[in-house]
């Protein structure tokens, strides 16, 4: 008996001493060293990705058009393919990517904690998220805006008609705040009905639980097609918010932020210059334009400035296509969605996609 007690005591002592040492190490790291830690963090993402051999991207698992799981367990959609483009740029292979399905609530915490390398999940770039959450955002990859879906026979034509209405919102988005702000600024009363789950929301909305459903225009368009009778619904013309959807990365990792941003610019640039996955080889062999030559890695060694190979942009466009190809594939007429390009076309065509020069 006594021997056993002694044994327990000794084990406890040993455990306590180990823990206390661990604790001391923690305590010994003074706050002043934070800077050092941060700097070592700032090169970490690229190194981590290279060492790991694949990219981890946070996406949505059920947003048709943007990112969703097919029955075979593959991630499809515009955002998923954008993740593949960046994998092609960084690792030379669009399939060297692993997707993490995240809810809107989880997404930022997953990025902050380092569980994912980048977040491509319809995240709106806002000032609070940029500063308060210690995140950085790329250039917007999709310009969206919030609007309302209503029944055609409801007689609702403008936001002013929504006085006293019940309005469905999917929680965990900027939509709730935008809705509240617009209704308050116009002195309209309404009753929000918040759902966590899209299926529950759609079921209730189609049964007439609410008079309107608010969300991003692109999302509402794709989801309207999934209703039992898409022809019964329509979207209001008014747009109540700016939703620049951007790729999220951790704040302070400047190199990684540059890589993500310039990969995106590469997709814009390729479309602007008519470089597609089909014609990229012939352009590479024939182009006389210095900027295109630099872009394709034939001069200036732009890739190495990012810490990548010089044919990074070539790999990306060759293997996954330019921005326009991605858009048409997932939102264009052949996708069955037919979302108009709106602002999401190159500046040369009157859109907002504008790549800084590749030089």
């Amino acid at each position, binding site marked *: 008996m*006594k021997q056993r*007690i*002694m044994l*327990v*005591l000794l084990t*406890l*002592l040993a*455990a*306590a001493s180990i*823990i*206390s040492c*661990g*604790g001391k190490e*923690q*305590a010994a790291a003074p*706050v002043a060293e*934070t800077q050092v*830690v*941060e700097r070592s963090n700032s090169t970490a993402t690229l190194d981590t990705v290279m060492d790991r051999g694949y990219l981890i991207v946070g996406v949505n698992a059920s947003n048709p058009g943007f990112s969703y799981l097919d029955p075979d367990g593959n991630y499809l959609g515009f955002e998923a393919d954008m993740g593949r483009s960046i994998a092609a740029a960084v690792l030379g292979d669009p399939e060297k990517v692993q997707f993490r399905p995240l809810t809107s*609530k989880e997404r*930022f*915490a997953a990025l*902050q904690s380092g569980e994912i390398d980048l977040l491509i999940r319809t995240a709106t770039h806002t000032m*609070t*998220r940029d500063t*308060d*959450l*210690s995140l950085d955002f790329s250039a917007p990859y999709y310009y969206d805006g919030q609007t309302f879906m209503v029944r055609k026979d409801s007689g609702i034509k403008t936001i002013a008609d929504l*006085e*006293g*209405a*019940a309005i469905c919102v999917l*929680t*965990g*988005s900027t939509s*709730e*705040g935008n809705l*509240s*702000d617009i*209704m*308050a600024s116009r002195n309209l009363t*309404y*009753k*929000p*009905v*918040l*759902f*966590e*789950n899209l299926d*529950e*929301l759609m*079921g*209730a909305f189609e*049964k*007439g*639980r609410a*008079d309107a459903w608010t969300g991003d225009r692109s999302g509402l368009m794709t989801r309207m097609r999934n209703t039992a009778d898409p022809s019964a619904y329509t979207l209001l013309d008014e747009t109540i918010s700016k939703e620049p959807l951007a790729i999220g990365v*951790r*704040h*302070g990792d400047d190199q990684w932020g540059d890589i993500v941003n310039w990969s995106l610019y590469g997709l814009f640039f390729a479309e602007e210059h008519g470089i597609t996955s089909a014609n990229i080889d012939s352009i590479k062999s024939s182009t006389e334009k210095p900027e295109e030559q630099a872009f394709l890695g034939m001069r200036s060694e732009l890739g190495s400035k990012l810490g990548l190979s010089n044919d990074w942009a070539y790999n990306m466009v060759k293997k996954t296509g330019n921005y326009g190809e991605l858009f048409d594939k997932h939102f264009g007429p052949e996708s069955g969605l037919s979302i108009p390009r709106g602002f999401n076309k190159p500046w040369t065509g009157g859109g907002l996609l504008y790549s800084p020069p590749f030089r």
Partner: protein
Amino acid sequence: MQLTKLNDDRVLRTAGQFLFALLVIFIVASMYGNTITALTNRGMLPSFKFLSLAAGIDIGEHIIPFDNSSSNFRAIIVGLLNTITISFIVILFSTFLGLFIGLCRISKNWLVKNIALAYIEVIRNVPLLVLLLFWYRAVFMEMPHIKKALILGSFQSSTGGKGGTLFLSNRGLSIAWLKPAEGWTLFLYIVAVAVLLAVVFGLYLRAYGKKTGRKPMVFLWSLSLVVFISALGWIILPDSPMVMDYPTLNGFNPVGGLSISSEWGSLFSGLILYTSAYIAEAIRAGIQGVDKGQVEAAHSLGLSNFQTIRLVVLPQALRITIPPLTSIYLGVAKNTSLGVAIGFPDLFSVIGTLLNQTGRALELILVVMTIYLGLSLITSLIMNIYNSKIQLEEK
């Protein structure tokens, strides 16, 4: 000398406990230190400043006023009040339903007994979330559309809309309800005076009872006094203290009266079914825990069946039932958080919204954990006090 001390059981035990406490402190401290260091490195040190900032959201159901400019803190309070209200009402209703089913369960009538048994077995073996979704999708959402709402006592309201005593649609239930009117404040004063008088009268009655040795029914008399004076006040006041508020349908939703949303209704119905099945089993355990001899003794004393249950069985069964009942009650407050699945804005749903609006995940999770812990501790404190009161006083 040293050896003998080390061999002393008491010393060893104390030292063991001391070391164990140390171990726990070290683990907690290192976890805390780790969290703070990691958060500082990421530039996101916890801060609760956001609580006083405007939330910029709306909440569908609120007991206290809430709008776009209300603070995050107020949003949490609104959610908390929603959680507390529905928990309280569910506990109240499911206790009565549970008692009834529990009594049916031990009935001698074969049909009654087996219906109760089937109810308990089915409900207890279906996950609560499924029950809630069933109520929401299959019951409340299948009710008529608002344009075809079931209306009782329909009339044309002066504002041009349609009025009624009761509106039932898949948006919820609206019924006519009393609403404070001009005379309300005055009436409250009268009630206050009545209560004061009743207390004085009650004290007098008690003194009278002590003096004479007769036991007047103090509570009953005082209560009747309050009711009598209040009723008198209601009648003689020039302005009626309360008026009937009828719901009217003018635009999209009925306005006025008392309205219960489909979400509230589903959560309420699902939780009551679920909780009462557990309570029924606790009650049955309590009653069957009372010795058979007690019932036989009561019968042989000439007590009727009802008297036997009320005076002999239930008081003893209660003692056995209270501890399991406490854990069932504790579960109710926590189970309301499933309301988030069917769109009810309870505490958890509000926290989820704030979490996304402010990005303060760690802080808000801490807040919500503290609140649920607090709710549970308060519930169990109340139940423990009650438990110690009804325990057998050993003499």
